[in-house]
Structures are given as C-alpha cells and as structure tokens.
C-alpha cells in the first residue's frame, strides 16, 4: 500500500470518528431537557398507554378542557377507563372528563376507590420553576400535596404514574406499571422546569394593546379590580398578605378548639397547639421574608411565644386566649395597612 493511500485512509478514519462524536452541548443540561420532553410525551412506563402529555398536551397549553377533549378520538388514552374493565369508574369518570374536563384523584388514599376520591381540573405545567417553591417546601398539584417521596416536583412524576398510568386499580408496581428511574425523574424535572417563564414578571408590563393596558391597570389597582391583592404577580400565585391571613385564620381556629376543649379528645391537644404554631411560623416566614408588616410580624412572634408556653402547661386555655388576641391584632394590622 502506497504511503499516500495509507495517509488517505488515516484521514478518512479520523474524519469518520469526528463525525460520530456528538456536537458539544451548547447549553448545559439541554440534552436532559430534550430527554425529559421525550419521556413526557412518549413514555408510558409500562402502563395503560397514557403519557404525561395525555393530560398535559403541549397543543393546549399543557392542560385539557371540554372543547379540547371533544376533539379527541374515542380511543385516546385519556378515555382508557371506557375500554378497560379493570379500570372503569373507580379509575376515571369519563363523563366528567368530557363534560367539564375533570380527572379523578385519590388524594385521601386508595382503600375505598368507590367512595373516596376527588375530581379536579388539570393544572398546566407552565412556570413551575416559580410556583412550586414555598416557605413550607415544595407544593405541587392543586392542594400542594401531589408528590410522594421528598414532595418535590421531581418526585411528582412517580405519584402521577401510580395514579394515572396503571393498568388496573390494584396499582402494583412492576405489574400494572413501572416506576420512573432516577435518571428519568431528573429528565422530566428538567423539562418541566424549562416550560413557561423562568423569572417573575416586572410589572407593569409594556403592553401594546390599549385594551390590555387598561386591563392591567384595573387588575393592579387597589381600588378598581383589586385582583392583585390575591394574584400579585399577574395571577400565578397568591399575595403574601393573603397567605399570611389564611395562616393566622387557621391558627386561630386551632387555638379556639383548644380553648373549647370539653369535647376534643385529650390526645389531640398537643397536635392542635403544634399545628397552630406551624401556621404562625409560616405566616412569620412569609411576612419577615418579604419585609412586610413588621408590626404584625411582631404580634405573631408574641403569639407564637404564648403558644409555646401553653404547650407546657396543664391548663393552657388562658394562654391560648392571649395568643388568639395577639393574632387578632396582627390580622387587623395586615388588613388596615394592605
């Protein structure tokens, strides 16, 4: 073999090797996001044929509604309960899916599928990077309790597969479906976090439409629409003040139950005070974290101290009443100055 021919072969081999090497990832993590997208829309996890995209289709803003559902073919996996006797009405109520876009969730366990379930709309999966985090840790799903394990968005897919992908209502891993692997959870997490806006909005928005501008003004006005009182960042989440007020309300209910302790079983007393304290802690975190209503936060701190003191007392009712009074003052301060 001539030297020229040998050199040509070497060059050809080098070029072939270079072509087989994947191009460098221009954006770190992109491959993981792409894999997550594939899993989200294609992977059935050995179940009934559904994918994440069955209920979160990209062409409908990652949610479903009656208009969208009406256009689906009868054999769409969304309607799997119609054609699978092992699923049926204990898995899904297809009348409610078609009529109002509601799916079935067993939030309170799987012991009584016939009677214990919830029907819910399908939340979109946009801007999750901004909406899942909370002072109490990750909050997924409509009621913030959608994920097993560490409760993260990453773990949510495991719960979703168990709830929605199963071949039968027995829901046996390895039989009715397979659980996502760690690698798959990572990819799904990356994909979902990449959807929608990645930063909070800086209001007011520079809108082009005069109608939209007027709508924005009404939305954010404290005297007209007042919408921003609850939807302070254009609708994605509730306002810190509203969240804190709800925490205070729940704490007061728990404390009042402790005060009116005639009919409540003794073993629940500690749990009542502990939950009341947790609610107050959440409110303090929200207010202090946002630098909001320092006077109200100080009242809440005093209320928390009273609850702690009440926990160690034989007759905590008086302290619980004092704590309620402090929470009332805090609530009044928040409402007056919001």
């Amino acid at each position, binding site marked *: 073999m001539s030297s020229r021919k040998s050199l040509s072969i070497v060059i050809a081999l080098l070029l072939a090797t270079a072509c087989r090497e994947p191009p460098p990832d221009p954006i770190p993590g992109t491959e993981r996001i792409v894999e997550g997208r594939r899993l989200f829309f294609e992977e059935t996890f050995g179940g009934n044929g559904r994918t994440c995209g069955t209920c979160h289709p990209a062409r409908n803003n990652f949610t479903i509604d009656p208009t969208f559902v009406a256009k689906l073919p009868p054999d769409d996996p969304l309607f799997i309960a119609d054609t699978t006797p092992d699923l049926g009405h204990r898995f899904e109520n297809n009348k409610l899916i078609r009529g109002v876009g509601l799916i079935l969730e067993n939030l309170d366990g799987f012991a009584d599928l016939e009677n214990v379930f919830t029907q819910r709309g399908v939340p979109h999966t946009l801007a999750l990077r901004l909406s899942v985090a909370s002072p109490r840790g990750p909050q997924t799903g409509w009621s913030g309790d959608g994920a097993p394990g560490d409760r993260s968005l990453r773990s949510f897919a495991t719960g979703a597969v168990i709830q929605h992908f199963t071949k039968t209502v027995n829901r046996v891993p*390895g039989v009715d479906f397979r659980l996502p692997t760690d690698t798959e959870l990572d990819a799904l997490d990356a994909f979902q976090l990449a959807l929608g806006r990645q930063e909070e909005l800086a209001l007011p928005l520079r809108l082009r439409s005069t109608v939209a501008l007027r709508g924005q003004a009404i939305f954010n006005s404290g005297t007209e629409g007042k919408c921003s009182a609850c939807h302070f960042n254009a609708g994605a989440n509730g306002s810190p003040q509203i969240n804190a007020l709800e925490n205070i309300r*729940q704490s007061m209910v728990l404390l009042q139950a402790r005060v009116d302790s005639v009919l409540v079983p003794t073993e629940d007393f500690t749990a009542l005070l502990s939950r009341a304290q947790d609610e107050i802690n959440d409110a303090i975190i929200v207010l202090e974290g946002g630098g909001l209503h320092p006077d109200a936060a100080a009242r809440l701190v005093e209320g928390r101290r009273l609850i702690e003191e009440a926990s160690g007392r034989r007759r905590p009712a008086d302290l619980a009443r004092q704590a309620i009074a402090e929470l009332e003052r805090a609530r009044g301060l928040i409402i007056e100055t919001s």
Partner: protein
Amino acid sequence: MRLSFAVTVMATVSLLLTSAQAQRATEVLIPIGQSPGVSGISSVIGTIASCDQRGGAVTISTEREQHMATLSTETKIYLDRSAAKKSGTVGSRSDCQKGRRGEVKFVYEGGTRTARVEWIKIQAE
C-alpha cells in the same frame, strides 16, 4: 347552641388535622427502597431488630449500624406487599415485628434528623 358550636369546632378541627394526612397518598403504594428523593437519603432501610409495639420504640439494623426510632400516633405505617405482587396497604403496629425488612423515614427539623418516624414501611410476610 353550645353543643352545635362544639360539634362545628370538632368538625373543623378534624378537617384541619386530617388534611395533613392527605398528603402524598401514593406513598403507600411505593415499595421499600423506591421512594423518590427519600430512600437511602432521609430514610434507613434494614431489618427490624426490635419493636415495642405499645411504646413505639423500634430499632432498624443495617449492615453497618443500628438506628433507633420512635413511632408516634402520627406515624404512618405501610405494609409492602410487592414481593407477592400485591399493592401496598396501610399497616398497624402489630406488623412491626422483629426480623422483618423495613424502611424508616425520619422526621427532620431544621435539617437535623430526629428519632421520630414520619412513616415506616414493613415488608409483609
């Protein structure tokens, strides 16, 4: 009026107490060692070396060490029946028996592990 008010308070309190238990309902169906983000991280998997079913003290033995834990009235007890190809179910303290494989998820406070158990999964016989 006092009775109806008390009943209302009881109902409200019951709702508030049970709402916390409604979280992560699918956890009962996840076998030992497969809880995402938990198994092997904030949980310990091993063999039940001892279990005081009444007092709640349980010891889990792993290859390297023993872990002491405390079951409370709030601890969720799950029975893992996956080896028999059956779905997991809610168990009871009577299932906490020496020699059985188990996984204990501890309660963490401020990043520090306590001895309290959030949930325990016990392999069914």
